[in-house]
């Protein structure tokens, strides 16, 4: 590309509406005649329902309808799970359509976590609906609960689902167990680490909402929902849950206030509002509260890992082995089990060439909120583990951690590189990423700074993290092997209007990623049309092509190429019409700056707009060419793409209080070709802080009975503006050969390295206290206890 628009830091077109408070989110939509639904959730993590009495609630002021799980029997099916652990035997709750099930929207006799729904109320106002919830009497027989995978897999553990013996969803492996064990047995040095990659709550600032309308004349539904995959959810709801024709449901996902992996699931509230809208023939809105969100929307991470790294005294890593227990929660979320296995397991070797590696995952159901993806899912857990081990290995052999990394990197010349666990790295320069980060950090001068900090009574630590983060889900045949029960291609259409405007429709859906601007930049660059004249339509299943949605850092590297290739189709057709108009042959045509001309005769030309008009009038167009200028592409990538990075954190610890202060954070990233550097930086800032949140503050805490203690933002700490440094960003560009843009996914890479960089920095700072490892989050209390193992 000539790059006049593409690759430039263009201001976002979508911003003014947000900044003026004019952009509607689901909660902001108010329809005439709308009534409000609330869901009664179980207060117990595990219980039998003896009886439910809704008679009082039904009489409350304003109440229109009260239902329990019994009212849904035969009228609604369980939710399905569509991404299961690939290639292995797995067990799920049942679904009549022979697809893994994920539980009914409301339970009739058995509740399995504190967010499980038992009844739903519709009333004229939200306040009335909430009042009515309190009047519903449920008689529970409380059962013993399990909150960790180990406990769930223990003999005689309470059973969650009849169809899942021993609560084991799947035992999943990748790599070669025998050769890995042999390499470990033979190794000069072996380091081991047990760690908990704690459960976190993704916490977009917008909780979820759903609003349904039903037209009794046409039998058509409209669902407004805060979803990142409207097309998929339409399919799932119609075909698997509600038994209605796909054509009878339109999903509109208005603006979505962040997701970070939580809004790509079909949740019970969606079929429930649709059901209620049909029953009551009125628009029905359900809007979650923060506490409701925390108790019922998927949570992230939660791997208990036991890892072993083996190597030589001169710093060569020879083997890596991981046994992980993944906590799936009470039900499989729509794509949860796939995330918990492949995305973590296949990623453990990171940027290193490790001859023998093996990962096994026990994915188990427990009485906790269902698990889903969280920004950087799987790859972040793998990176934290491996990078902590690499540092422990370096300490064990007395080598600089940077040097150990250098000695083990996959080299740029080795690409494409098969990591032995299922990923085929496409391109990248891992050594260069680290060297740049080290230079930026002034790595050589850090010992002096450490001394200086010590003189002030503080301890400075430096932590490195190198990583690869598979992105761009994905090639459909490949994803089928990974257990994805559906295609993962992406789609785009472009229409050139006779007025010079361009409309692109995409199946992908933004929730903060800047689709409206960055995708317009691709089209603008290719077609020579001003960004202002291009509108990107999305988020409505009516009028956009089927697309899979935005998740796993896939929009730019999946929907982007679809648009790019569609521009090609547009130009090919326009070229025929232009040549016809100019009485020239199509092979002589040159397209530049929005205009076709005959090669060597700049003045013998016709603009794209004139060509579009000619095709629109269709009074004189070449034989065999259809009128109008419009094209569609369905794009399936040949393989994933593999962005990579190196991050360095500098932390200062106050040994008196255990407080950890983040002094600097350096991130050098390789995301291939960048469409809009300003947006890219924004993605990194947000991604890094997401990782810092897990490292320093966040943890979903359940008590032994399965109560979620941290169920409000008072008790669940998110990162705040104070105390964060400026992020020092740099980029290395290795275009991926797997899409025509050369772009790699960038939404998650900030997160993937951040926990490891901070963890390594902290342990470096505490080295003199003999601290080997601390589990996240690194709260002052934990750090203080690590420094003072025998108390004050």
């Amino acid at each position: 590309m000539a790059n006049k628009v593409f690759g430039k830091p263009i201001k976002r077109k979508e911003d003014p509406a947000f900044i003026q408070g004019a952009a509607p989110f689901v909660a902001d939509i108010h329809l005439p005649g709308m009534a409000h639904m609330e869901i009664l959730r179980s207060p117990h993590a595990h219980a039998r329902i003896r009886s439910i009495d809704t008679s009082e609630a039904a009489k409350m002021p304003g109440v229109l309808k009260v239902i329990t799980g019994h009212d849904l029997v035969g009228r609604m099916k369980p939710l399905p799970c569509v991404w299961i652990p690939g290639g292995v035997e797995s067990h799920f709750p049942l679904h009549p359509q022979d697809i893994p099930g994920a539980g009914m929207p409301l339970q009739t006799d058995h509740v399995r976590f504190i967010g499980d729904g038992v009844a739903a109320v519709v009333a004229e106002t939200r306040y009335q609906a909430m009042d009515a919830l309190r009047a519903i009497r449920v008689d529970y027989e409380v059962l013993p609960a399990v909150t960790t995978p180990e406990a769930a897999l223990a003999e005689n553990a309470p059973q969650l689902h009849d169809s899942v013996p021993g609560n084991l969803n799947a035992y999943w492996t990748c790599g070669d167990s025998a050769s890995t064990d042999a390499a470990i047995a033979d190794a000069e040095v072996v380091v081991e680490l047990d760690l908990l990659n704690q459960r976190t709550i993704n916490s977009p600032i917008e909780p979820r909402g759903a609003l349904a309308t039903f037209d009794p004349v046409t039998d058509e539904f409209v669902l407004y929902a805060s979803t990142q995959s409207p097309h998929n959810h339409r399919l799932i709801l119609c075909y698997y849950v509600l038994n209605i024709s796909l054509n009878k449901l339109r999903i509109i996902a208005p603006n979505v206030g962040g997701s970070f992996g939580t809004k790509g699931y079909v949740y019970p509230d969606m079929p429930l509002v649709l059901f209620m809208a049909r029953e009551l023939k009125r628009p029905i809105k359900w809007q979650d509260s923060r506490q409701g969100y925390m108790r019922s929307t998927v949570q992230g991470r939660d791997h208990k890992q036991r890892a072993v790294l083996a190597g030589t005294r001169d710093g060569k890593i020879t083997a890596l082995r991981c046994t992980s227990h993944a906590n799936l929660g009470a039900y499989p979320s729509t794509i949860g089990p796939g995330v918990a296995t492949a995305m973590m397991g296949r990623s453990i070797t990171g940027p290193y060439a490790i001859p023998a590696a093996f990962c096994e995952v026990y994915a188990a159901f427990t009485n906790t909120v269902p698990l889903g993806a969280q920004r950087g899912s799987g790859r972040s857990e793998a990176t934290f583990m491996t990078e902590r081990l690499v540092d422990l290995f370096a300490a064990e052999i007395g080598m600089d951690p940077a040097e150990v990394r250098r000695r083990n990197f996959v080299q740029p010349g080795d690409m494409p590189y098969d990591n032995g666990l299922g990923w085929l790295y496409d391109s990248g320069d891992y050594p260069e990423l680290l060297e740049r980060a080290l230079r930026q950090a002034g790595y050589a001068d850090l010992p002096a700074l450490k001394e200086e900090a010590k003189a002030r009574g503080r301890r400075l630590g430096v932590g490195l993290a190198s990583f690869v983060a598979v992105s761009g889900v994905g090639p459909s045949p490949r994803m089928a092997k990974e257990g994805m029960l559906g295609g993962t291609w992406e789609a785009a259409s472009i229409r050139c209007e006779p007025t010079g405007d361009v409309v692109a429709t995409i199946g992908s859906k933004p929730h903060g990623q800047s689709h409206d601007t960055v995708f317009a930049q691709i089209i603008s660059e290719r077609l020579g049309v001003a960004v202002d004249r291009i509108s990107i339509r999305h988020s409505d299943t009516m009028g956009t092509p089927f697309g899979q949605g935005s998740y796993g850092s896939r929009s730019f590297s999946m929907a982007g190429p679809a648009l790019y290739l569609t521009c090609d189709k547009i130009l090919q057709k326009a070229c025929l019409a232009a040549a016809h108009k100019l009485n020239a042959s199509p092979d002589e045509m040159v397209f530049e700056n929005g205009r076709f001309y005959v090669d060597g005769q700049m003045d013998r030309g016709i603009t794209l707009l004139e060509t579009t008009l000619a095709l629109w009038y269709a009074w004189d167009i070449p034989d065999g060419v259809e009128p109008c200028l419009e094209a569609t592409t369905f794009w399936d990538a040949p393989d994933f793409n593999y962005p990579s990075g190196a991050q360095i954190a500098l932390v200062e610890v106050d040994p008196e209080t255990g407080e950890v202060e983040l002094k600097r954070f350096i991130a050098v990233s390789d995301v291939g070709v960048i469409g809009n550097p300003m947006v890219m930086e924004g993605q990194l800032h947000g991604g890094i802080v997401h990782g810092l949140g897990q490292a320093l503050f966040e943890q979903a805490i359940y008590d032994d009975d399965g109560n979620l203690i941290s169920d409000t933002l008072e008790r669940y700490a998110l990162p705040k503006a104070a105390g964060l440094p400026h992020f020092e960003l740099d980029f290395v560009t290795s275009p991926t050969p797997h899409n025509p843009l050369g772009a790699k996914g960038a939404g998650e890479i900030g997160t993937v390295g951040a926990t490891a960089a901070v963890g390594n920095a902290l342990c470096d700072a505490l080295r003199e206290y003999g601290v080997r490892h601390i589990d996240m989050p690194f709260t002052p209390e934990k750090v203080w206890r690590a420094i003072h193992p025998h108390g004050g």
Partner: protein
Amino acid sequence: MRVTFTVNHQSHTLDLEPRVLLVDVLRDHLHLTGVKIGCDTGQCGACVVLMDGVSVKSCALLGVQADGSSITTIEGVSEKGTMNPLQTAFQAAHAVQCGFCTPGMIMSLTDLLARSAQPSEAEIRAWLAGNLCRCTGYENVVRAVNAALQVAGSPAHLVTETPLRKFYDSHLRAMLAGDVDALVDAHYSADAVLTTFEGVISGRDALKTYFRDYLSVHTDLVIAATERFVEFGDSIYTETVVRSARGVTHAYNAFVVQDGRVTHQFAGVK
């Protein structure tokens, strides 16, 4: 409970259930959905509005607590379709991703900039303790504030909650409350001149008589809409729709405000 308050310079009288949160009043009753709800427990700051110029979390207040106050929401910081310098800086610095936290951020920062002409970066970050953003990592939000400070130089230019506007609001509140003494003593200079087509009134005593007469005729006075508000130096020009027992009129008013008191006012109705 019957409560009267001004939102974005428009007066509202509502009958409210005492338990209803202010944020629900603004969103559900007045359809000001630029005010967001992220947590409803006072942590996230998505619901921040200005109450008498001070940033408050509208999820942490009851609607009835707003009685007699003047509230500004994101819808009131700039004319629809335009952005003030702080808002412009948010776009220029890419301080917005999903946009859900943005209105609350703008409102909080509006208050900060009204208090402090040149807040330091640490002050900006500390001030944002009550505004959570999960997308931007705050970096570009801080950049945007710094950029806005460069552009405008003075916080008064940043926001519509200017001293004159506050003065006007307080004038209006005293008038609507029927508190003629407070209205005249606190808002008019000793030799203020009010020029109307019914006559020219000069001096506080005459003004008090005039306003008492006016209010005794115009009972149940409400400013139904402020259609124009222009301020320039020490001068204010407004066009309002006034509703009272006497019916609905379009009024225009011009004020010259010196040393915090009206010295000259012109008033007319159409």
